[in-house]
């Protein structure tokens, strides 16, 4: 290092020295990175177990240096329920896309939230099925073009995009629920605080902690990574408003 300078940022040691398979500019990478930064900062790398989904993030275990289990499509919450109930002192999280969590896995999601299982759900909403070639998801915006809605999503035909954070926040088993976005450095820094908060609430055993991340998919959206920032910031956030939807600790600290 040059004389007179100090280190202010380096890649977390908990993120394995592997090239992530995600497309350039994909927020899956960003989310992996900041989860691992929080795990490193909290010193819980030996006590954290992740459950990866089916979707682009199926190989999350290749990048995060913690214990991992990979679940069948949509079933991450069921698997995490078993892990957390048998190892209640561990920090357990699922990491799921919108096709995984809000389509094939809707039942597992709703019921594990309703049961107040004590793990954390990281829900990566990029409004599309990224892995399989950009098909329409339950979260695809009205009018959004995908490979299975080439003229844009028609809500008369297929219904409205699902606002999962608002939905699960209504369930008594949910202790904390927030929607985040990773489109600017300030928002990434903010998201890290929310991840930490979710883990702290999990440690207190207060119930389900649910973080929805408004994400991107430059490949599925057929745009550049920088252009995807506009779709996130303008279109996605209009329909998926940011903020804390529920916090049972709000009045206690």
């Amino acid at each position, binding site marked *: 290092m040059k004389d007179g300078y100090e280190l*202010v940022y380096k890649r977390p040691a908990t993120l394995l020295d592997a090239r992530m398979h995600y497309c350039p*500019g994909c927020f899956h990478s960003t989310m992996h*990175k900041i989860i691992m930064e929080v795990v490193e900062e909290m010193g819980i790398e030996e006590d954290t177990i992740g459950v990866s989904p089916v979707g682009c993030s199926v190989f999350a275990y290749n990048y995060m240096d913690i214990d991992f289990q990979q679940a069948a499509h949509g079933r991450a919450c069921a698997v995490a329920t078993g892990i957390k109930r048998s190892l209640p002192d561990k920090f357990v999280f699922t990491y799921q896309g919108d096709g995984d969590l809000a389509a094939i896995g809707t039942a597992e999601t709703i019921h594990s939230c309703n049961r107040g299982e004590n793990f954390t759900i990281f829900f990566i909403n990029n409004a599309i099925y990224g892995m399989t070639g950009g098909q329409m998801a339950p979260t695809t915006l009205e009018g959004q073009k995908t490979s299975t809605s080439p003229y844009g999503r028609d809500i008369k035909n297929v219904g409205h995009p699902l606002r999962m954070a608002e939905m699960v926040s209504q369930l008594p088993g949910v202790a904390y629920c927030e929607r985040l976005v990773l489109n600017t450095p300030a928002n990434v820094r903010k998201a890290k605080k929310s991840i930490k908060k979710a883990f702290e609430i999990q440690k207190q055993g207060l119930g389900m902690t649910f973080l929805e991340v408004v994400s991107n998919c430059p490949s599925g959206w057929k745009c550049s990574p920088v252009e995807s920032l506009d779709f996130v910031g303008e279109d996605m956030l209009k329909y998926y408003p940011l903020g804390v939807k529920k916090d049972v600790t709000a009045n206690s600290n």
Partner: protein
Amino acid sequence: MAAKGFVEISVEGCKGCGLCVHHCPVKCLSLKMDDTNSFGLHYAYLSNEETCIGCANCAVICPDAAITVYRQSKAV
């Protein structure tokens, strides 16, 4: 005057997404358009060494954690 900060960017770790270039407040990063890494991607580099303020915005937004940031130590 020495720059307030500087960054090191992993050529092979960079995917050329341009998010760091877009978010650098002083626009001192660029993509290397006349060269690629072994993946065929135009990697990011510190194109104006004098103006970097060491704010770490580029490293925070970099999805692939390819950037290391240093800032001038406060004079004691």
